[in-house]
């Protein structure tokens, strides 16, 4: 199996705080990897490092066989890496469709074509009824789905989801989980950070746990959920998979 993404000994320190400390993992082409861990574990920092938003203190990131450590966010996007933001970052004065069309412009040449792509993606994430609305009227849950739509419209190879379920109702979580789980079959590799555990534990065949900047566990959901260290750090004594 070839690794699409290979992270080795990645570290990132903010002053004395080691947000990410010697993290190594790899993601295979077509995999769906769940990434969990308590707040401040370094999940979003790992994303920022891979997507080029910040530069690592040390370590190496290899994507598609190329060392891409320290690249810029737009270079990451152009090479096929999409990410969502944990705190949604919509283009506040644009409509929903234009928010997504901008991403589609990465591959589409005309605005009209980009809007067509955007329409399909928006329908996929369940925002069809607010297609032409300004983003200022969206709820938190809708903004999360807008983030997903913008990432999908880039038609990436690797997609990094950051807590896309927060603020969604349970039925919405179900349909979104289905969508995420279907992405590998559509040629996308997914890394997914999530606090809504029932969703991620059910959909991701492999779960990695981060705690205080380090990889605490990495395996199938059942194993990870039974790991005493994981239970102590994150899940709590009463965690069950139900």
């Amino acid at each position: 199996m070839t690794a699409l993404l290979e992270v080795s000994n990645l570290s990132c320190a903010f002053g004395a705080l080691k947000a990410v400390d010697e993290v190594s993992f790899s993601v295979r082409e077509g995999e769906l990897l769940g990434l969990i861990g308590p707040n401040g574990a370094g999940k979003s920092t790992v994303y920022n490092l891979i997507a080029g938003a910040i530069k690592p203190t040390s370590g190496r990131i290899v994507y598609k066989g190329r060392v891409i450590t320290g690249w810029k966010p737009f270079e990451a996007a152009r090479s096929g890496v999409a990410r969502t933001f944990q705190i949604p970052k919509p283009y506040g004065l644009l409509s929903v469709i234009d928010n997504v069309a901008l991403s589609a412009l990465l591959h589409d040449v005309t605005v009209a074509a980009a809007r067509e792509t955007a329409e399909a993606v928006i329908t996929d994430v369940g925002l069809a009824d607010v297609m032409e609305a300004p983003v200022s009227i969206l709820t938190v849950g809708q903004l999360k789905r807008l983030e997903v739509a913008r990432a999908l419209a880039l038609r990436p190879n690797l997609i990094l989801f950051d807590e896309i379920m927060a603020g969604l109702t349970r039925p919405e979580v179900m349909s979104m989980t289905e969508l995420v789980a279907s992405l590998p079959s559509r040629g996308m590799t997914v890394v997914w950070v999530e606090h809504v555990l029932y969703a991620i534990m059910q959909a991701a065949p492999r779960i990695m746990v981060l705690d205080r900047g380090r990889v605490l566990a990495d395996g199938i959901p059942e194993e990870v959920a039974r790991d005493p260290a994981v239970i102590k750090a994150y899940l709590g004594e009463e965690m069950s998979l139900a």
Partner: protein
Amino acid sequence: MPERGSISLFEVVLFGVCLTLVAVPVPHFYQDVMIVTFIWAGVALAWNIAGGYVGLISFGHAAFFAIGAYTSTILGVRYGVTPWIGIWIGALLAAALGTTLALIGARLRGPFFILSTLAAAEVVRIAALNWTSLTGGAEGIWIAPVPNAVNMVFASRTTYVAVMLGYVAAVYAIAKTLEGSRYGLRMFAVRDDEDAASAAGVNPLLVRAGAMTISAFLTAIGGSLFAQYFQYLDPTHVASPELSFQFALLPALGGLGTAIGPLLGSFIIMPVSELLRSYLGAVFQGLHLAIFGGFLIVVMLYFPDGLAGALKRLGLGRSKGPP
């Protein structure tokens, strides 16, 4: 909602009215008002490409205006280069300064970028004031008032009005085209959230530099045209900070981010301020400025999205009924 970048009936009618005003005989004073209004509207539209589309608020656009005015005039008066060519050289020089400012200020945001543009314009003003051998310093430069189409000096004011209308129409068309294009969408995205735009594959620095370049280029053309009409230029007339503030104020009052905003702002505010000045200036020195200031405060307080936004709400409210 109409497609962004498409032309509305309102715009067609407005253009028709402007054309009519050019064609019919109007007293000289009103023609002067129209000339100034058209030039300022063109520059306000150009300013909006940087300030409204990409969010690069500039208090230094007088620098580009001055570079345009001085370049075409110096080339024409000293070296006999026709302004028809000099205009483009001035525009290219200003564009180069615009690119440079965007690149130097790459890491500056908000007030810090604004201050950098203000400083750049001051550098240009002081250079114009002190580089006497080139610019004539505080005494300025005269363009001989001898009508000659090659020198872009016309006998009839009507010709000037027509040229200026051509200028504002061209800048408007460029702004509109940008608005509906993929470059426009990228500009709006960079303005609204740079990190998100970058994560979508857009290089924010390139977008900012591009917008400043276009904006500076178009502003400089306005400067050259103003010099040709006024036939005299000195640093106070074409390079002062007041001018920069005016260029920023017109789009801000009219409405940022759309082409119609700066146009409405200029078409309403310029004639009003010119008329106030001419009628009240003689009666009570400074009264026109007080009235003008009060008007600005009212617009800013009650129409935060500008006159264009206010008109749009009025129109939507009428056609749509209850939401």
